[in-house]
């Protein structure tokens, strides 16, 4: 067959190939949904022997169907020129794995004798299936983004979806040791997804390992931001067939200014996050005493859990007593490494990317200097204004917080520590209030100045594009500088030789206003539902929930269901961002074509 005929054949089969390809994708998707529910059922409920048999058969069906589908897709791939090579390789790789699985896992449902040390086929095969389905789902996820859809609404809905999935997973009988009420489960799931850290249950006592694992995954997804996650996966596996408008949408979601950077930024974010979390887990593993744990697995899990929890600014701990345990509280180096994880997580991905670029440039410079004898290249304004503001404000707030806690509590809650520990605990507290939410000291026993400082720091929160919450350091900086600019009589708000646009000021203003209104509303509602608590406690709790910090004066567990619901909504709004949350429902920009006359407002 010459080339011409081959081409004709291709054209002729194009329609059918497309149809088959689409059906394969559709089948895999539906299979994936079914698999998900069955898998959840399998995980969540204790199974008898007959149930196990059914499940095994089901997994077998899944395996064969998947193998079949991927075989078909790979055959189609041979004739498809529009797909990128990377995707084709991936498809082929998946097929290889599936074929490999058929060898590993005999028809009787037992493992090949070489692999008999593995506990059960289930723990081996189901994660692989999950991964395959997840990749498949993410490939299609990007095409679900429609430019007509409000990105804010997508963001809000995706968080809500994850919260509900988390709630379902936590409600499974195998997740919890004692039965939890629906509101408590919902609260815990929201707390994890919104990286808040407020709990109404005791994670170490009430949840099984499965439950804790669910929490860990929820924290990770929530911390990274679901959209970053989804867009990463989507881009990684769907190649380049993403429309311009979809990219635009993703740019808005990923909070990045430069369009082309979005994809590579997302890659870098994931990479950096993993590196930091692994390093953090190693450090924590080294620093905690082995006597705290029954076995090594517990210690490893503890390290990973705390590393992720700290980096994602979540504040959950899976150890009874949390960080107030004697071996942790009086362990300054452990606290320091946790503080660094918190600060790194809270400083935001944009600035981490900035650092990455900076280090990359310096390394290249040094390499060029010594190897090629080239001169250093200076890139102007490598650290953009946002990064500078974030760095300065973060630094100032850390120092102020540390000094404040140290001075106010020297003879207060810090009494039991020695001088070095006092400094470290102050630093840790300063870092953790900026929305991580681990508590080493008892926040219900602090003096009033510390209380105000902590509430203020929680309200300010972390930096934009980070895992933390609050109104964000940049908002706070604009608020403060706006005041001083006015008092100096400048016409424009100028920071580091850059004029801040009126829109930025308005936005900062809106964030501040809305945060205060929402917190005020929440305080009123909680005080209505639970009048037995004092204003201090309720205000602390509300600020903590809105800023997704997770510090508490100890009233969370005693709150009524209505109040818990208020906090759940508040956490969700706080994580998504109050303005984004509002704009999810009312986004409808005015036409830019009409320009109205200006009017100054009296006050």
């Amino acid at each position, binding site marked *: 067959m010459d080339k011409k005929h081959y081409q004709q054949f291709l054209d002729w089969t194009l329609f059918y190939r497309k149809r088959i390809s689409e059906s394969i994708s559709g089948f895999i998707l539906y299979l994936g949904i079914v698999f998900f529910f069955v898998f959840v059922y399998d995980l969540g409920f204790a199974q008898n022997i007959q149930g196990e048999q059914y499940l095994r058969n089901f997994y077998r069906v899944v395996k064969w169907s998947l193998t079949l589908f991927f075989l078909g897709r790979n055959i189609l791939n041979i004739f498809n020129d529009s797909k990128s090579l990377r995707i084709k390789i991936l498809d082929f790789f998946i097929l290889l794995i599936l074929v490999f699985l058929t060898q590993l896992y005999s028809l009787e449902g037992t493992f090949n004798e070489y692999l008999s040390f593995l506990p059960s086929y289930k723990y081996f095969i189901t994660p692989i299936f999950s991964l395959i389905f997840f990749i498949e789902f993410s490939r299609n996820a990007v095409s679900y983004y429609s430019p007509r859809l409000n990105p804010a609404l997508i963001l809000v809905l995706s968080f809500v979806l994850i919260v509900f999935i988390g709630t379902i997973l936590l409600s499974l009988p195998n997740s919890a040791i004692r039965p939890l009420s629906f509101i408590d489960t919902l609260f815990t799931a929201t707390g994890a997804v919104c990286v808040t850290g407020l709990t109404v249950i005791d994670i170490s006592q009430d949840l099984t390992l499965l439950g804790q694992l669910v929490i860990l995954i929820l924290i990770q997804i929530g911390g990274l931001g679901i959209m970053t996650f989804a867009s990463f996966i989507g881009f990684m596996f769907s190649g380049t067939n993403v429309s311009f408008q979809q990219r635009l949408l993703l740019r808005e979601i990923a909070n990045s*200014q430069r369009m082309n950077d979005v994809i590579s930024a997302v890659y870098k974010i994931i990479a950096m996050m993993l590196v930091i979390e692994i390093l953090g887990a190693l450090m924590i593993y080294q620093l905690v005493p082995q006597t705290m744990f029954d076995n090594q697995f517990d210690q490893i899990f503890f390290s990973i859990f705390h590393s992720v929890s700290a980096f994602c600014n979540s504040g959950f701990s899976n150890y009874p007593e949390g960080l107030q345990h004697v071996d942790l509280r009086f362990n300054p180096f452990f606290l320091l490494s946790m503080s660094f994880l918190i600060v790194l997580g809270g400083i935001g991905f944009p600035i981490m990317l900035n650092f990455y670029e900076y280090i990359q440039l310096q390394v290249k410079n040094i390499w060029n200097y010594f190897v090629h004898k080239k001169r250093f290249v200076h890139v102007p304004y490598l650290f953009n*204004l*946002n990064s500078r503001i974030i760095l300065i404000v973060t630094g100032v707030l850390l120092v102020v917080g540390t000094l404040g806690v140290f001075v106010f509590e020297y003879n207060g809650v810090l009494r039991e520590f020695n001088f070095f520990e006092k400094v470290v605990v102050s630093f840790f507290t300063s870092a953790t209030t900026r929305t991580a939410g681990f508590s080493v000291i008892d926040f219900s026993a602090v003096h*009033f*100045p510390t209380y105000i400082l902590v509430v*203020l720091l929680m309200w300010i929160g972390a930096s934009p594009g980070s895992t933390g919450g609050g109104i964000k350091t940049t*908002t706070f900086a604009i608020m403060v500088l*706006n*005041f001083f600019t*006015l*008092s*100096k*009589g*400048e*016409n*424009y*708000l*100028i*920071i580091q*030789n*850059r*004029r801040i*646009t*009126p*829109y*930025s*000021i*308005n936005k*900062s*203003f*809106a964030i*501040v*206003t*809305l945060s*205060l*209104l929402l917190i*005020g509303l929440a*305080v*009123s*509602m909680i*005080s*209505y539902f639970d*009048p037995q608590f*004092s*204003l*201090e406690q309720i205000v602390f709790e509300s600020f903590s929930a809105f800023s997704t910090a997770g510090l508490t004066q100890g009233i969370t567990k005693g709150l009524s269901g209505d109040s818990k619901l208020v906090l759940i909504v508040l956490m969700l709004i706080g994580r998504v*961002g109050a*303005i984004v949350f509002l*704009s999810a429902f009312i*986004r*409808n*920009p*005015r036409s830019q074509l009409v320009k*109205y006359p*200006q*009017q*100054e*407002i*009296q*006050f």
Partner: protein
Amino acid sequence: MNVINTYQKVQDWIQPICRIVVKVSDRILFFLGIIAILGVIYDIGFEDSGDDVEEFRSFYLLYIIACLIIGAIRIFFNIFYLGKPLRQKIIEFVLLVLFAGGYELLTQRQNWQGISFLYESYIYYIYPVFFLAFLYSISKNIASFYSKKANASFLLFSTFFLLSGLGTVGLLLPKSTHDGIGFIDALLTSVSAVCTTGLTVVDTSSTFTGFGLWIIMLLMQFGGLGVMTFAGILGRMFSSGISFQQQMLLQDTIMGEKMSEIIDLGDKLSEVMGTIYKIVFVTLLVEGIGAFCLYLISLEYAFDSAWDRIFFSLFHSISSFCNVGITLSSDGRIIETNHWYQLIIAFLYIIGGIGFPIVFAFYSQIKNFIRNIYNKIFLRQHYSFPAHSFGVNPKIALWTTFILTVLSAVVIVLLEWNNTLVQETFIEKIIGVFFLATTPRGAGITIVDMELITYPTALFYMLMMWIGASPAGTGGGIKTTTFAVAFLNVWNIAKGNETLVIFGREVGAESMKRIYAVLSISIVLMGVFTFLVYSFDGELALMNIVFEVFSAFNNCGLSLINTASFSPESKVVLTIAMFGGRVGSLTLFTAFLYKRSKKKLKYPSQEIIF
């Protein structure tokens, strides 16, 4: 030709002399005036026994003679002095005639012994005369205090500061109180009255004598007027975009100097002066009508004398209109049984708080309506409908006030209908709801026991106190327009717009920055004040303290607990909060208008991520 030349020469020679004479005599009269006023205060405040009546008489006589001599010289030079407007010359002449009358009264009183009223009560003639002369003197000399470099914020600050100081001294006079009053209490009461707040630490009616109450009433009146005039004029300048230099000139003209330089600004000047006159006129009119209504409604048997009843009505009318909230009923609540009384009070403080631009608009509507009816009936003319253009600001203020009132009413009905209002009849409840819904936004008069209101009501009240009344009104807070812009900005940003458009007008970037600053600084300051009060009075519940600080800073005057239960240090903090709240927002408004940056650089713009 020759005659004209000679005249010119004489003029050149005589004008500097005139100027020097006028300046020197200004100073002398000013200091004499201060001495005289101090004497009067001493006379009123300290002397109960009539032993040294004669000494005071001769003291006053001496002052009058001195004024007459210097005044006569001035009048003589005034004839030739060209650098002075005719109006001032006339005022000076009238004052001189009044002083001559005083001289006549003091020296020739034996001849008038038949007219006992004048004989006994000569003070009722000379005190007002002295006061008028002193006021004129101040207006002549004040320019040297407020030098050209001083700006409106300094003027504002010092005006309120002086008023508060004078009030404190006045209330400390032995004659003001029955049993004396501590300095801090007097200071707090004075500042509370001047800053139209209404927090009191002593029982007003039983602590102060009639004289003391007069002082408080005057302080409230001046405080209220001061706020309205400052806010009104400066606000008008800001929103009409008059430049810095023009403002400086206008400021000078208000002080009565440099008339020659502002000829081209005559229109603006007359506008400003006209505004002030209008403010004073409308204020007195509304207060007069209010007092009359209150007089009619109040129960006759509740008072010892008709004069008491008149004073009671007047005091409450002024207290309500100026959004102060100091009342004369002993438990801090106005006549609880009389609900029509409450209704009138509510209307008074709403009119006072809504700001005079809106009041003017309504006033001219009513005036026009009455004129139309008059014309229709007597002159058989057709109705005329003048074009009324409500500006954007009054529109925002009116709408916000309306919405907030409805919202508050709903909240009060939900939370207090069966709580504090449970004993009232239906009509009384309705009036009570209306009263309670409007009082936190500035007035601070209460008709229920504040200790019994629910927790969420208290929180809601704090929000309402913070929002406060409308611009150019007597109420406090960050103002309805500020809140409206803040709220709409949130909505606008969420909608995805870049600029905020209200009623077909784009809100200026400058306003936005200022409003943002007002809002943020108010919260920061309230936080600081709360912190300070809490550190002095840690044993009190935080709720009570926060409420008190909100009330003080936003010039409302409600409190959950008796303000007297705070420690002296906290009282000082509250006093500062009241003063800061009153002067602060206006200062932010004005202070920085004066120092415009001369930077010619233009920086690249940058968006910020949040």
